[in-house]
C-alpha cells in the first residue's frame, strides 16, 4: 500500500514527472537556442520561470466565469498527470496498467486541448477567442491521424493496454519496423497537439498575441505552462512506449533506455520546431487531412491484414 502510494506520488509517478518535465523543457529550450546560434538558458531556468509565475498577481477578466477560469488549469494538469501514470516508465509495466488504458490515455491527453479552448472562450477577449477556435480547429485536424497512428501498433499487438503492447513487442521486436509510418505520423501529430512550430498557429504570438491564454496570468498561467511541459513528457513517453518498445528485462536498464528514447524524441521535435515556419491553420488542416490521415489509415489496414495474415 505504502509502496504504491510512493510509486504514484514520487517515483516513477508525479514527482518524477515534474522533475523530468523540467529537464526536458530545459533540453528543448537549450537545443533550440543552440540551433539558432544563441546561448540558451541555464539548467534551472524552467523552474525559475515557474516559481516566478506562481508568485505573480492573478488577474481574472471581468466577463469571465471565475470558477471555470480558475478550475481549467488544474483540470488540464490533473488530466496529464493521470495519463502519465498509465505509461510504462520504470520497466515495461506502468504503475496503473489495465486493459484499455491506451484509449484512456488518448482521451485524458485530449482534455488539456479542450481546457485550452474553454480557457480562451471563457476569457471573452477577441484574441483569446480566435486562439480558442484555432485550437479547436487544429484538434479536428490532428486528432484522427493521431488516434489512428496510436491504435495501429495496438491492433497488431492485439492489446489495448500500453503495457500489454510493450509486452507483445518485447516478444516480437521485429514487428516494430512495420509501425514506422505510424510513428512518423504520430510525431507530426504530437507536434501539432503540443502546439509547437510549425503547427503553432493557435498561439501565434505575432498574429494573435499568444492565443487562448492571453488573459491568463500568475499561478493559473503557471499551471497551464506546467500542463504544456508535462504534456510534452507524456507524449514523448507514449511515443517511446508504443513505437520504440525495446526492453532488456532489467528495470534499471529499461529506465535508462526510456530516458534515451524520450530524449531522442524530444530532440526530433526540437529539430522540427527549429527548421520550419509557422503554417496557417487552413494549411495545417489540409496537411493533416490530405497527407497524414491517408497514411495512418493505410497503416491501420495493413496492420489489420497482417494480424490476420501472420496468424497472431
Amino acid at each position, binding site marked *: 500500500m505504502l509502496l504504491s502510494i510512493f510509486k504514484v506520488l514520487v517515483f516513477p509517478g508525479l514527482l518524477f514527472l515534474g522533475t523530468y518535465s523540467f529537464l526536458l523543457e530545459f533540453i528543448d529550450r537549450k537545443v533550440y537556442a543552440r*540551433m*539558432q*546560434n*544563441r546561448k540558451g538558458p541555464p539548467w534551472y531556468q524552467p523552474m525559475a520561470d515557474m516559481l516566478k509565475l506562481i508568485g505573480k498577481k492573478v488577474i481574472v477578466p471581468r466577463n469571465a466565469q471565475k470558477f471555470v477560469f480558475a478550475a481549467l488549469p488544474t483540470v488540464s494538469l490533473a488530466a496529464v498527470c493521470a495519463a502519465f501514470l498509465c505509461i510504462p516508465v520504470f520497466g515495461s509495466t506502468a504503475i496503473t496498467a489495465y486493459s484499455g488504458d491506451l484509449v484512456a490515455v488518448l482521451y485524458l491527453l485530449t482534455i488539456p486541448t479542450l481546457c485550452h479552448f474553454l480557457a480562451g472562450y471563457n476569457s471573452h477577449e*477577441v*484574441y483569446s*477567442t*480566435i486562439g480558442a477556435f484555432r485550437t479547436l480547429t487544429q484538434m479536428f485536424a490532428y486528432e484522427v491521424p493521431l488516434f489512428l497512428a496510436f491504435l495501429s501498433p495496438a491492433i497488431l499487438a492485439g492489446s489495448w493496454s500500453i503495457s500489454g503492447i510493450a509486452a507483445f513487442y518485447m516478444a516480437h521486436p521485429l514487428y516494430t519496423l512495420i509501425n514506422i509510418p505510424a510513428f512518423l505520423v504520430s510525431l507530426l501529430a504530437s507536434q501539432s497537439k503540443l502546439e509547437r*512550430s*510549425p503547427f*503553432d*498557429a493557435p498561439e*501565434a*504570438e*505575432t*498574429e*494573435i*498575441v499568444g492565443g487562448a491564454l492571453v488573459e491568463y496570468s500568475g499561478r493559473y498561467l503557471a499551471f497551464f505552462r506546467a500542463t504544456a511541459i508535462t504534456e510534452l513528457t507524456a507524449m514523448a513517453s507514449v511515443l517511446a512506449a508504443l513505437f520504440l518498445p525495446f526492453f532488456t528485462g532489467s528495470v534499471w536498464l529499461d529506465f535508462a533506455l526510456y530516458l534515451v528514447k524520450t530524449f531522442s524524441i524530444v530532440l526530433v521535435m526540437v529539430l522540427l520546431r*527549429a*527548421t*520550419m*515556419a*509557422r*503554417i*496557417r*491553420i*487552413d*494549411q495545417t488542416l489540409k496537411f493533416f487531412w490530405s497527407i497524414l490521415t491517408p497514411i495512418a489509415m493505410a497503416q491501420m489496414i495493413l496492420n489489420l491484414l497482417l494480424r490476420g495474415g501472420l496468424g497472431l
Partner: protein
Amino acid sequence: MSDYREKNKVVVQIGPQHPSLKEPGSFKITLDGEKVERAVIEIGYNHRGIEKACESRNYIQALYIIERVCGICSHAHTSCFCQAFEEIAGLEVPRRAHYIRGIVGELERLHSHLLWLGVASHEIGFDTLFMYTWRDRELVLDLLARIGGNRVNYGVNTYGGVRRDLEPELMQDILTVCDLLEEKLKYYADLALTETTLIARLRGIGTLLPEDVRKYSAVGPVARAAGIMDDVRITEPYGVFREIAVNGITDDHCDVYGRTLVRVKEMLEAIRLIRIMVKEIPDGPISVRPPRKLPVGESLSRVEAPRGEDIHYIRSNGGESPDRVRVRAPSEANWHGMSHMLEGFQLADVPIIIAAIDPCYSCTDRAIHLIGDGINQLTDWAQIRALSIEQYKARGIDPGSIKIREF
C-alpha cells in the same frame, strides 16, 4: 474613422501596441471568419515634427536632424538632403566622396534588408532564420560602426562630401565581410527558393499587381516585386551610380514572396557593387567647403533608400536656415496600397503583409493641414517629360551625356 461593426463580423484591433508591430500604428481588421474583409489603417502615432524642426534651425543642425528621420536608413536620408543642398549651392562633390557615400549606402542596404528578413521570418514564426540573419547583420553593423563611430547614425555625410575617409585596411575588411556575407546570403536565397513552409506562408499573399502599384504609387521592393523597375539608381542615376551600372532586380510574383526574393537578390547585388566601388575608388579630397548660407532657390532630390525612393525637397530664401523642408520617406508611398494588399487574405497573413513593405512608421508620420480645396490640376506624361528635361538642363546636367560603366 468610426468602428465598422456588422452582424457576425469580428473587428480585431491590431495595434497601436501589438507584438508584431515594432512601432505604433493601428489596424482595424474586420474579419469574416479568418478572412480579412476590410482593413482600416490609422498611422500618425509617432509624429515628431522633423520638417518644422529643420526649418527652425540652420543647415548644419538640420543635417543632424535629417539623419534621425529613420532609425535604419539614416544614410539615405542625409545623402538625399545633401544632394538637394549641393544642387542649390552649386557644389561640386569630389569623386572619392561619391564613392564613399555609395559604399556606406550599399552597406546600409545590406543591414536594412537583413533586418527585414529577420523581422519577416519572425512574423511567420520562423525564429531560427530571424536569429541567423540578425547575427549576420552584426557583421555589417560592426563595419558601419568602424566607418562612422556609430551602428546606425554614422554621420558620414556632410554638405559637399563626406566627413570620414576610408582607410585601406578598413576597405580590406569590408571586402572580407562581403565574402563572408555572400556565402550566407546565397544560402538564404537558396532557402527562400526551396523551404516548403516558407514558400507556403509567403506565396500568393499581399498581392499588388502592376496596375495597382501604379494606382497606389508604391515604390521600392514592393513595385519591383510586381515587375516595375523604379530603382532611382537606374532611372535617375545619382552620385557614384552615374559611373557604375546597377543591375536592376525585378520579380513577377507580385506578392510577399516576390518582395522577399527581390530583397535577397538586392543584397547580393549590393555586395557586388561594394566590391566594385572599393576596387575603383579614386584618390583625392573627400569634401569641399560648403557655404553657410544658401542662395535663393529650391531643389528636389531623389535617392534609392533600402525601402524605395526617398525624396527630399529644400526651398531656400537666402537665409541660414531652410524656408521649407519636405521629406517623403519611401514607406509613406507604400502605405496607400496597404488596405488593398490586406483585404481578401487571412488574419494569419496580416502581420507578414504589413511587414512586407518594411514599414517605417515614424519616418512616415506627417501632420498635413489642407488650406481650402487645394489645387486640382493634372499634368500629363508629355508635360512631365518636357518639364523634367528642362529641369535637368537648368541643373547643368545633360541626361544624354552620363556614361555608366558596366561591370
